[in-house]
């Protein structure tokens, strides 16, 4: 997930990804997912390249990147933890998890200064009968209490 590479690297990645998706209709979302999978985020330098490759305006591409919560403009931390805050998890105390994270000095939507953890909120992970739910680095956890969240944040689970 090194993103400190030169613009040339970003450009080459983007052009290759677009080429891989050439035969798909309306390919911008799959392309953005693929760019983010390779680079860890969608860097600003990618936008003019995408616009050029897909025959769109920069504004169109920028509009799409910023519309969807999933696309990051900055790299995430080494661990990404998402706390579900939708109704079913609220009913079992999801806000206690949010308070716990806050008391641990973490701000929702931000990455810690040392780049270790990004904590985010999410609305529904589809685990509504086994809440509160948390996802960490793509793995889903059910029945998460504050202590367990602590272990997840520390990477011990």
């Amino acid at each position: 997930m090194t993103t400190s590479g030169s613009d040339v690297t970003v450009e080459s990645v983007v052009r290759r990804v677009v080429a891989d998706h050439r035969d798909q209709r309306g390919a911008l979302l799959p392309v953005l997912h693929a760019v983010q999978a390779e680079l860890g985020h969608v860097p600003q330098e990618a936008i003019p390249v995408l616009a050029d490759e897909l025959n769109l305006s920069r504004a169109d591409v920028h509009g799409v990147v910023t519309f969807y919560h999933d696309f990051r403009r900055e790299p995430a931390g080494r661990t990404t933890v998402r706390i579900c805050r939708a109704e079913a998890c609220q009913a079992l105390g999801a806000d206690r998890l949010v308070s716990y994270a806050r008391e641990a000095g973490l701000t929702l939507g931000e990455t810690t200064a040392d780049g270790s953890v990004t904590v985010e909120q999410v609305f529904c992970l589809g685990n509504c009968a086994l809440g509160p739910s948390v996802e960490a680095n793509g793995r889903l956890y059910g029945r998460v209490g504050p202590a367990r969240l602590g272990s997840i944040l520390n990477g011990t689970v």
Partner: protein
Amino acid sequence: MNNSSPFGTASHSAVTVYVPRDSAARSVGADEVADALQRAATRGDFAIDVVRNGSRGMLWLEPMVEVVTPQGRVGYGPVTPEDVDGLLAAGILDGADHPLRLGLVDELPWLARQNRVTFARVGVTDPLSPEDYVEHGGLKGLRAALEMAPADVVAEVTESGLRGRGGAGFPAGIKWKTVLDCADELKFVCCNADEGDSGTFADRMVMEGDPFLLIEGMTIAAHAVGASEGYLYIRSEYPDAVATMREAIELAREQGWLGENILGSGLHFDLHVRVGAGAYICGEETSMLESLEGKRGMVRAKPPIPAIEGLFGKPTVVNNVLTLTTVPVVLADGAKAYQDLGVGRSRGTQVFQLGGNIARGGIVETAFGITLRELIEEYGGGTLTGRPVRTVQVGGPLGAYLPQAQFDLPMDYEAFAEAGAMLGHGGIVVFDDTVDMAAQARFAMEFCAEESCGKCTPCRVGAVRGVEVIDRIVASTHRDENLALLEDLCDLMTEGSLCAMGGLTPMPVRSALTHFPDDFLGGRRLLEIQPVTATGMRTEGTA
């Protein structure tokens, strides 16, 4: 049979043990349980064939392990990885007794009382085994459909009374007929698997537990309306469903169930998975179409309806996962059999999803007409916390909060509409008596503000103002005036929004106000509420 020799083989052939691969089961340790069983098998202590099935939907029992015995499949649960050695030593491979033994799974009252139509195979089969699929009745619907003229397939679906399961309940057959009647060469079938509503997880479970069924349903739709290309739009929060569907599509192509000349007929149809990107609004069909086209998920004004001008301007069937996964059953058993289930204009079965603060959450598929109370108390067993149930929200974040007094409502589209509520997708979220309904009403507005696509003013601005007005009501600032203002705002959002996001957000708000007015008198908990806007647009403790 407890053969401890590392080189020995067990005294009988391998016993099939099912451990769910469903992501809910995995969230509470199913992978670790499967690994522990596999380790015991690898050590040579026991002859076990571990199969990863879907979940039976008794989610409070997950991870639930099922052992195939001559008497039938015996369930044990909830199993932790630490339990595995003890269970094996106790002789579960012979179905032996153990404190975690549940009995024969098919005879468990919770399951046996249900009428599993759409979910018939989920949890029973290996989701990615084409052989299992066919052995358990798969492809019957598609084969029947391919024998029929497209118009007859549409007529059969119309006759069955099947209504869209996404929430609106629009008759599926009528939508299909509109697409069939369009003369265009290129038409699409799109499946909306952007199941963003809290309290709903049936789409996810069927995609993870019986993916070929969805492929079959979409293929039948393609034959019925003359479409050649299909898109399955799955939300990014469901990585397991995405992976399972992609694998199933590959397998289906190998089997000749997708592609050219499907099952030897003249039908050509192929299917692509597209992954959403974390926008709730993309569950709205026109917004989903925009997203599939690679654009911002902005809602389109209707008309034109997607059936006439849908994806890339072409005639498009847009149906929910549960609608499309019910179609094969309708074709296999005939419209009449499906029609015979249900009440009034709500025909067939509904897949209810019990979630939130509930002791026994999961999937209850049963004919329409069952009451909320039966679902919450008899199936659900009340709250997980053991406190009294105060309210349930039915139909997702845009559905009404109902008080105990309305728990005897029969679950059908019309009865709910009459009561000022909506059945929606059949999701039921239970809250105990610690819930603050002013906070829930505020959340409904806040969620709308966060997730609005921004196209129309009533939704984009109305939701932000809604949060402010509720805060003033709770703070007793010009209370009566602000209550009147909130009413007015709710009217405006209901009448003036382009889609259901803005149009239905007033439903949870108004139901909370109507049924739980005391909670709006202030002081209860609002100061503790954490804002949902993570970007720092509003400061904390806005109350």
